[in-house]
């Protein structure tokens, strides 16, 4: 249990998927202008992450990794090289399903998110989380918690940036820095702030 909490805290604060691991920057920079859009996008990303991470884990563990096909008596086969294609295919398919569901059940949210919904597919964070759990050798429950908390971490970061950007509208930013430049510097400062969480650990050493 404690290792799950540890994973959650680490992914949200200490090793934030965006501020420390740099994943999910592209849509982050585009949408962080408006708190409502940021919230909507953040929740959508969190949902996709929480669902696709365990899904990809199942596929990786039972189909792709070295010796995974042992339940079909083909334990010698290693399909690890297919993981890029399979993961991204699962993510793309899932996002498509979410898009269709949103269009049917909540047209207003669908309209608000607009172009950003298909962009979730190419959000580095989603593929990144799937690739990370392979590297860190998490089990199913840990992967689920990892996906969920990475999403929450991303949501926190994008909300923070959106809020700061809105306040910055009233500041006198130098001409060359306006727009993208100041966004980066702000993100850098946020990243420094999150670094102060480093060193928190719940496990007994």
């Amino acid at each position: 249990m404690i290792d799950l909490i540890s994973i959650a805290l680490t992914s949200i604060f200490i090793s934030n998927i965006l501020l420390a691991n740099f994943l999910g920057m592209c849509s982050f920079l585009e949408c962080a202008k408006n708190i409502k859009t940021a919230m909507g996008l953040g929740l959508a990303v969190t949902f996709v992450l929480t669902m696709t991470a365990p899904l990809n884990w199942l596929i990786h563990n039972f189909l792709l990794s070295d010796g995974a096909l042992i339940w079909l008596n083909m334990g010698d086969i290693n399909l690890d090289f297919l993981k890029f294609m399979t993961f991204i295919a699962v993510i793309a398919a899932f996002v498509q399903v979410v898009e269709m569901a949103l269009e049917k059940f909540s047209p207003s949210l669908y309209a608000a998110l607009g172009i950003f919904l298909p962009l979730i597919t190419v959000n580095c964070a989603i593929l990144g989380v799937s690739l990370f759990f392979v590297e860190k050798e998490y089990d199913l429950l840990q992967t689920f918690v990892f996906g969920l908390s990475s999403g929450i971490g991303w949501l926190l970061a994008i909300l923070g940036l959106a809020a700061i950007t809105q306040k910055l509208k009233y500041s006198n930013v130098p001409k060359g820095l306006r727009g993208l430049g100041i966004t980066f510097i702000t993100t850098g400062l946020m990243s420094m702030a999150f670094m102060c969480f480093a060193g928190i650990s719940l496990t007994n050493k």
Partner: protein
Amino acid sequence: MVDVNKSGYTLIFATISCVICSVLLSGASVSLKDLQDKNKKIDKQRNVLMAANLATAETSAEEISTWFSKDDSGYSDIKTVIIDTETGTINDSISLEAYTKKPKKFPESSIVYECLRKGNECFILPITGVGLWGKLYGFLALKPDGDNVLGISFYKHQETPGLGAEITEDWFKSQFSGKKLLQTAGDFDSFRGVVVKKGIKVIDLPEKDQAYSVDGISGATITSVGVTGITTKYIKEKFIPYFKNKNK
């Protein structure tokens, strides 16, 4: 011209693209597999040797494989055995292949590498610990008396460059050569281990403690604590029974 929007065409296009991509990828993977496996094996063997200062990052792959290759009589400079960590005895029932594939299946076992080359006799032990951002993986090289440390190396970690990642730098690793684990030589119940000291330099410690301490990394307290955990608790639990049996 073909109507690119017809469903039938879409299906054919999708199928053909999948087939082409799969053939390309599988072909590349199969033909490069031997090279990749060899790279991984040499990389692991290099890390084992680096702990005992028998190889460096620049040592050639051929030289590294000579240490591990078996000659006609079955002798190899580096002998790999699997031990039972609780009883401290060699476990013949687990094959090396099975263990390497899924080490998590055998929590009470560990690999031990024994260097048999004259003049370099030592034991190289796989070690794991907990760092700041993730697990630390490395090797510790001990003299056959189970007391004198020859060296340490870390091959996998997620620590911060310039801070915790300094554990892979020469200045940190070289400190471990010559340190001791036992308070009284030959008495394994007097195990002390090596502590990574923060806040005080080793040269300022009383002389009797200097052989059991190394300087820590400034700004990397958690990582230093993690390394101490390895060189005290982990070594004691996993390997001291084996050395105790060996040196009876």
